């Protein structure tokens, strides 16, 4: 690298550092406090060198990173680093023994987890798994169907409130009839799925003609409206105070201590996660899944090939909503208390971030992203308050440098053998 270019780059970095120092000076260095109607400003001079140096280093790295990103597009796919890693990993896993071994290990780990790690961590895992279901559900809408849904939390809320309202209105009759209220959970689970699906279909009706940005905004509006309605209809839904004392799931009529209940719910949600993964995989690799992807790729071409857009969009939203509904019931059962604050726009955005960072359209990506976003704040406590900041930065980094995510989707590979009468017999390798 020439000295002259090095100097000019350093100069530019210096310039950028000064720019950011000035730009962020009022917000970062000056701190305002309003006491008695008067605004008082204090100076935190110690931020100045930190800010300056960070800006300097980062702008240097950023410029290089952008250039590297440009050139990366031009490289032949088989030469890239990530391809090499993928190939190595594939070779590693092709070994039957390793594949079976690691799968068994994973199953064992997941299976014994609650007994290894106690109630607190079990609950953390339950929450993480709930978000895995949510991420997988949203992945159908955004990843497969290409429809950006910013109000996904609304379906999550619908599911949770189905259980909550069932408890509130049907629960008392169960109690007076002497029936274990835990049954309500098992009734709510499929019911919430159905009701959420209905909501999904309802939402898709106004957006049938909309594209891209408009679609995103109206889903956002829908999400907010659902939350506002829940918040303001105190009479029916408990409003801001929510619904509490929601019963835990029925377990052979036994009364479970909180710790045991947590373990029970843990296994329930694991089963649900497996179910979700199974369904999503099946859909992905089917006629329906291909139609959804075609819609994502090019709506006009997909229509020209005979696919009914209206039906496709309905299916997309309905499927996505279904899984959010189920996840909602589990949340209600786990926390035994729900209120509208758990279903804000931020929730929707966090789920979106999970799949963007993990890789839109990719099942491992959705799982990985959800786990990452839910487990990280738990196990990196000191950084917890910077959580949203870090996620935001991560999302932007991913979208700029690796838009297919950390664990991108791999398309199914098909193999063909030529038979003697030149009719190929097909198989599929993955």
């Amino acid at each position: 690298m020439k000295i002259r270019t090095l100097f000019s780059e350093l100069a530019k970095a210096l310039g950028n550092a000064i720019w950011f120092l000035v730009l962020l000076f009022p917000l970062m260095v000056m701190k305002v406090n309003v006491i008695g109607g008067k605004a008082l400003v204090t100076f935190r001079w110690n931020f100045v060198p930190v800010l300056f140096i960070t800006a300097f280093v980062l702008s240097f790295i950023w410029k290089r990173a952008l250039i590297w990103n440009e050139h990366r597009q031009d490289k032949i796919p088989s030469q890239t680093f990530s391809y090499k890693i993928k190939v190595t990993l594939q070779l590693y896993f092709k070994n039957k023994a390793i594949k079976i071994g690691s799968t068994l290990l994973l199953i064992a780990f997941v299976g014994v987890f609650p007994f290894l790690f106690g109630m607190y961590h079990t609950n953390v895992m339950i929450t993480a798994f709930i978000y895995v279901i949510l991420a997988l559900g949203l992945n159908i809408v955004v990843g497969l169907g290409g429809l950006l849904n910013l109000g996904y939390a609304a379906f999550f809320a619908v599911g949770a409130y189905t259980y909550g309202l069932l408890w509130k209105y049907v629960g008392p009759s169960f109690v007076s009839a002497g029936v274990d209220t835990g049954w309500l959970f098992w009734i709510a689970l499929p019911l919430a799925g159905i009701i959420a699906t209905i909501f999904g279909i309802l939402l898709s009706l106004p957006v049938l003609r909309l594209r891209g940005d408009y679609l995103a905004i109206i889903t956002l509006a829908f999400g907010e409206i659902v939350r506002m309605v829940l918040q303001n209809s105190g009479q029916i839904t408990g409003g801001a105070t929510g619904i509490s004392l929601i019963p835990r799931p029925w377990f052979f009529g036994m009364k479970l201590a909180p710790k045991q209940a947590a373990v029970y719910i843990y296994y329930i949600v694991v089963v649900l996660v497996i179910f979700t993964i199974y369904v999503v995989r099946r859909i992905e690799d089917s006629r329906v899944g291909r139609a959804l992807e075609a819609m994502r790729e090019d709506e006009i071409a997909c229509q020209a090939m005979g696919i009914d857009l209206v039906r496709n969009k309905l299916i997309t939203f309905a499927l996505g909503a279904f899984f959010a509904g189920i996840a909602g019931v589990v949340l209600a059962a786990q926390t035994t208390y729900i209120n509208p604050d758990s279903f804000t726009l931020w929730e929707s955005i966090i789920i979106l971030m999970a799949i963007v960072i993990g890789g839109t359209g990719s099942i491992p990506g959705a799982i990985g992203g959800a786990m990452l976003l839910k487990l990280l704040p738990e196990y990196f406590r000191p950084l917890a308050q910077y959580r949203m900041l870090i996620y935001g930065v991560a999302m932007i980094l991913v979208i700029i440098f690796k838009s297919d995510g950390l664990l991108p989707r791999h398309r199914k590979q098909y193999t063909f053998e030529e038979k003697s009468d030149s009719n190929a017999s097909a198989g599929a390798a993955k």
Partner: protein
Amino acid sequence: MDYFLKLFLSGTAKGSIYALIALGYTMVYGIIQLINFAHGEVYMIGGFTALIFGGFFYTMGMPVWMVLLLSVILAVLFSAAFGFTIERIAYRPLRNKPRLSALISAIGISMILQNFVLLAQTEKYLSYPSYLPEFAFLQPFRQYINSTQFIILVVTAIIMIFLTILIKFTRIGKAMRATAQDKYMAQLVGVNINQVISITFIIGSALAAVGGVLICSYMGQINYYIGFVAGIKAFVAAVLGGIGSIPGAVLGSFILGWTESLGTGYISSDYEDAFAFIILILILVLKPDGILGKNQKQKV
């Protein structure tokens, strides 16, 4: 009738603020087809910057008018700088990527800015000292309109006039209109579209900053979250009037302002925020291009 007039005027004031923000949205969308989620944050940062500098200058003993003038100018400068920087960092690298990418990036920036201000300053609602003058001549009308509302109306009107002159009669305005119509063609005839885009962001952000200072002075408080709510509403206003259309943004803003004002005055104040969303859904279902929007058919 008195009540109606009062509501109407306060609705107009509200609408003016929405207009200042909505213009930023609509100009950016018109030029690069991006819903700039971070725009609301720029508005909030404008308010905060004015608060910070205002407090500083005031405690230094400057006369009030000077405090006001300087804090507004600085708020505008800093917001403009933020808008410019955001575009450079988060949107320019994605210019040739699918639109979804830029949208996601915008959401990311919005989150980063909100949390940045939250962490760097405070999560609390801060009361906002207003340095705006009180006008004696408005005293007799004080049941209809107060000084701050009056200032909002006047300032916004002046800004609209300037903006119209800029867009219609200056060279840069022409360049902006050309770029909004057809980026490639504009480039071919020698327009520096990078510059034009940057200027669009700068102008939009500057307007939002003014809006931020005015509204915070009016409401008497500020919080890191206000950008989000105001941003959504201003966006609804822009869509209502036809996103990409400048007169549309203004029209939509006033309609929203009046609806909110009259709605909370006559119907219920619980659902104040809901009006915006209901309007949004109605418009997107009935006429997605907005009142003054152009019918955009996709080329096949």
